């Protein structure tokens, strides 16, 4: 991440899951860091920070012909405004409301050039209430999407459930999002280096995930969100892979919530990293080169609805050089 880009951490989660507890934990810890905190004006009170900015959660459709391309106009405005201050920040933390759709928040950091030049999404952290999440998942679209979009999941209030219930919750979360890093907490107690400054978008973790480790899911309903991971031990031909990925996100972008991948191209010492939100894709060769001792395995994770694992695996394999 270039030095002049300020890392942004997004806190999502249903009302009462523990977002504000986590936020206050971050702000009260002795770390000598300066944060700008963006909260919703109707949010819970009692946040102690020098700079708190109210967000209006204004979701704007981009008038660019892309049907699912929405951004958070208020975040664009606020981030631009923060850059007008004399003193910079170590990080920006955005707390969303319980009912916020994470897609426009994430897309803001892909779509707006001025925001992209100045800030970069460090991680989407979703706080989940272990006691109530299963109920929420049954009656709310947002709870599922918040888990699907997460880079980090705080499975909170684990003291309020039995070990069996906890295992059921774990399974359900993993079925939606296999690639997020999960921490189980009580009172949102987590070491801050597990939620901040992770560069979670550097995606190294997806290399650790076993593809298809979930196997067949027996409890899914039709529009449930799942994760599909595909891999190839043969480097991929960029002339095949890029058009395929662009086509699949363009045509299936409404179903595909997130895309993350690390790809090996033939003869390219650097790793190619790709990430996406719905139809928006951003890809770049990382500074990080493939080490001699690591296999040049290309891996791609899709999180979304109506994903056909077999078809995606076949198409991905066909991109081999």
């Amino acid at each position, binding site marked *: 991440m270039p030095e002049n880009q300020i890392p942004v951490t997004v806190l999502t989660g249903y009302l009462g899951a523990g977002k504000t507890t986590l936020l206050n934990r971050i702000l009260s810890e002795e770390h000598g860091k300066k944060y700008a905190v963006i909260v919703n004006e109707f949010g819970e009170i009692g946040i102690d920070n020098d700079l708190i*900015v109210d967000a*209006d959660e*204004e979701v*704007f*459709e981009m008038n660019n012909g892309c049907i699912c391309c929405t951004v958070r106009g208020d975040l664009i405005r606020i981030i631009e405004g923060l850059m007008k201050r004399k003193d910079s920040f170590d990080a920006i933390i955005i707390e969303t409301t319980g009912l916020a759709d994470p897609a426009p928040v994430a897309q803001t950091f892909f779509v707006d050039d001025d925001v992209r030049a100045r800030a970069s999404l460090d991680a989407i952290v979703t706080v989940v209430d272990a006691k109530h999440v299963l109920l929420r998942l049954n009656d709310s679209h947002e709870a599922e999407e918040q888990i699907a979009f997460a880079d980090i999941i705080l499975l909170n209030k684990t003291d309020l459930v039995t070990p069996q219930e906890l295992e059921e919750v774990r399974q359900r979360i993993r079925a939606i999002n296999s690639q997020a890093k999960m921490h189980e907490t009580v009172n949102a107690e987590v070491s801050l280096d597990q939620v901040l400054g992770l560069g979670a978008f550097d995606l190294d973790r997806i290399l650790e995930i076993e593809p298809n480790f979930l196997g067949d899911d027996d409890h899914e309903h039709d529009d449930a969100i799942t994760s599909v991971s595909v891999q190839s031990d043969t480097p991929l031909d960029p002339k095949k892979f890029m058009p395929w990925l662009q086509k699949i996100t363009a045509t299936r972008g409404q179903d595909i919530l997130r895309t993350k991948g690390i790809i090996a191209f033939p003869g390219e010492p650097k790793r190619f990293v790709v990430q996406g939100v719905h139809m928006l894709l951003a890809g770049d060769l990382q500074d990080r080169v493939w080490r001699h001792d690591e296999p040049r395995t290309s891996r791609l994770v899709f999180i979304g609805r109506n994903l056909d694992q077999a078809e995606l695996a076949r198409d991905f394999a066909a991109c081999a050089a």
Partner: protein
Amino acid sequence: MISLDDEALVDSYGRRLVFDAPVNALVWIGDMAWFACGDGHAHRVSFAAERKTVAAHKGAILCATAHPDGQSLLTGGDDGRLVRLTSDGDVGEIGGFGRYWVEHVVASPQSGLIVAAVGKEAVIWKQGQREAAHRHGYSSTVGGLALDAKGKRLAVTHYGGATLSYASSADSSRTELKWGGSHLACTMSPDGGYLVSAMQETGLHGWKLPQMVDMAMNGYQAKTRSFSWSRRGKWLATSGDNSVIVWPFEGKTGPLGKRPVTRGALGALVTKVACHPFDEIIAAGYADGAVALLRIGDDSFALVQAADGKAVSALAWSADAETLAWGTEGGSGGLLAMNTLPR
């Protein structure tokens, strides 16, 4: 004009300035340039007088304009306040809005009105009144404000278009100008015949008034953040591309069916434009810190300041066109004395 190989004009005919924070706005009051900065300070600068610094806001100054009295400065900040600064350095609060930012302010010496954008409202003060007279509300956050030359007709841009109203009336009739997308900064032509807004998606949208004929003015690389009308509204100079995009507004149909003139492609993105008050000359500021004078007529230019990496964030001529002033995101700035330039 000066030939290309001459040194930057600021060193021979001007003065470089240093501030402690990004220059977010620049306003001329008489022969004094006020630089409004990101540390809440406003600096009053001229060739003749000593610099005066006023602590106006707790956070950053986000916007500034001349008070209708023509003697003092209005600044809005991210501390939620709109204040008035007199030339003596006195600070008086006009309005306070808590955690809401005061992001835009316009004022008119003709009507005496002050209008500030606070969240989804335009707050309006009438001449001589301490308290705000009334507020006009909108469905989304105000993206930009503009008053016509008489200071009566108020244009407010927002998500989905713009709204015209009469600022002095609490229950003014409203004209809704609809166009999909998020509309940011806006400007009205001096004759009130056109409203032009800058889009989030880049590009401009124009409305020819009063018929409300839509005009799409696209092709910009970046968002347009700076507009400037040449004398009598003949041209509209705009930022947001690698050259200054200058739209012709002469005649009955303005830019409809016409191509813009492009001037001053010096390499970097144009971030600020300011038309000379009398002549067909545009001052342009660039993302790499360069400042140049451009002729509309023949694409010749003179470099006022060479690129130094600090994006130009403010640029303004004094009303008598004697001095050009500019400021940057990096907290630098300058003054150029036009009357000493070789012709």
